[in-house]
């Protein structure tokens, strides 16, 4: 969080996550090269460099597809949340693989002429009106530039100093990069492919990413409790709130409030927006007594909305009271970091057991 800056706040989970990502990359590249090599023999044999370029390209595209699926998957099913916690490292790893593909492709296809290889990508003949002569490389470069800026600004320092709205807008560029990559593959490698495998991969990726995003939007719209303009609003029965998790309530001024149940018998309401990157706190869990953002693990105490020392982030808190089994939320936000009495439902929980 904001207390001092280090390159990476390593934890055992991050080591395991990164280890698995890079092991997966290595296994994918080796298997891809072995299978491609075995299926192209004799006159059709491919050079190791061509195989490596294709392996990195396919790996990076599939990684980007997975990255774009993680967010909606975690919204649809909380079992996917562990994938979300270190998505940033997954993204940077994907950029490194994409960069390896780009560097090797530029060396292999553009460095044997008289012109600067980087310049030749943009000056080599091509027509946007021709399918067979479409300058697909330019779309790859455009996507790579977006991914570079995203990887370069992925550290917390940039989020803090570029401002969360600008930072988030910058990182929403991933969808532009993805669209550009789909054009890059569809107008390049896909046209030259001997089998329909690549077409199936790209189509499957687009359908998966699009479908999961639509499903997640539909689910989140259905799950949110819509409230009228009123100080106290009924958010539902305490039984509807899973232990160590929250339900999200949208109050009249479009503000979203996360109502958590934790330790089985305690209720607390806080703003749904994480101070770090506006992550959805209501989709996180209570871990070690703290509300933990599903995006990057920022934590807040339920009782006052403050990050545990030495961190200093604060979020708005909200009052709660009980009306029988119904949980009533005061929709007027208290100042960030305000402590208020925690609503206890021990008697209700015991009576229900």
């Amino acid at each position, binding site marked *: 969080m904001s207390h*001092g800056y280090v390159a990476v706040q390593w934890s055992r989970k991050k080591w395991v996550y990164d280890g698995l990502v890079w092991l997966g990359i290595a296994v994918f590249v080796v298997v891809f090269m072995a299978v491609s090599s075995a299926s192209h023999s004799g006159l059709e044999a491919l050079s190791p460099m061509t195989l490596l370029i294709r392996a990195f390209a396919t790996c990076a595209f599939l990684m980007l597809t997975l990255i774009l699926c993680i967010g909606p998957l975690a919204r649809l099913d909380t079992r996917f949340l562990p994938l979300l916690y270190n998505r940033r490292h997954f993204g940077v790893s994907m950029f490194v693989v994409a960069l390896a593909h780009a560097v090797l492709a530029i060396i292999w296809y553009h460095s044997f002429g008289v012109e*600067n290889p980087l310049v030749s990508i943009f000056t080599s003949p091509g027509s946007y009106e021709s399918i067979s002569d479409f300058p697909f490389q330019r779309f790859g470069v455009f996507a790579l530039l977006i991914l570079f*800026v995203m990887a370069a600004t992925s550290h917390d320092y940039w989020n803090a100093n570029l401002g969360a709205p600008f930072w988030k807008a910058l990182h929403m560029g991933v969808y532009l990069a993805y669209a550009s990559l789909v054009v890059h593959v569809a107008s390049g490698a896909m046209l030259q492919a001997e089998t329909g495998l690549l077409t199936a991969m790209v189509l499957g990726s687009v359908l998966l990413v699009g479908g999961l995003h639509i499903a997640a939007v539909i689910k989140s719209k259905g799950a949110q409790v819509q409230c009228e303009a009123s100080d106290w609003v009924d958010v539902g029965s305490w039984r509807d709130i899973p232990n160590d998790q929250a339900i999200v309530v949208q109050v009249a001024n479009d503000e979203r409030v996360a109502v958590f149940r934790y330790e089985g018998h305690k209720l607390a309401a806080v703003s749904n927006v994480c101070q770090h990157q506006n992550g959805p706190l209501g989709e996180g869990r209570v871990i070690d007594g703290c509300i933990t953002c599903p995006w990057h693990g920022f934590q807040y105490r339920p009782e006052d909305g403050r990050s545990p020392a030495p961190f200093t982030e604060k979020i708005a808190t909200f009052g709660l009271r009980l009306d029988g089994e119904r949980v009533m939320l005061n929709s007027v936000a208290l100042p960030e970091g305000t402590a208020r009495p925690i609503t206890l439902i021990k008697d209700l929980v015991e009576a229900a057991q």
Partner: protein
Amino acid sequence: MALFVSVYVAVGALFAVYFAALGYKKLDASATGAGFGVRLLWMPAALALWPALLVKLLRGTAS
């Protein structure tokens, strides 16, 4: 176009060196004392976004 990109990257590279040495703490005083490794990590972003960062630094100095 190639000349513009070359100039942008060259100025960005110089700015990134300045930023990793001094600019980072002018932009964020709480970053003072950040290690060499993390400042090295910030250099690519400084290179890419140098016009925006330069404006931020100049505004900060002016105020």
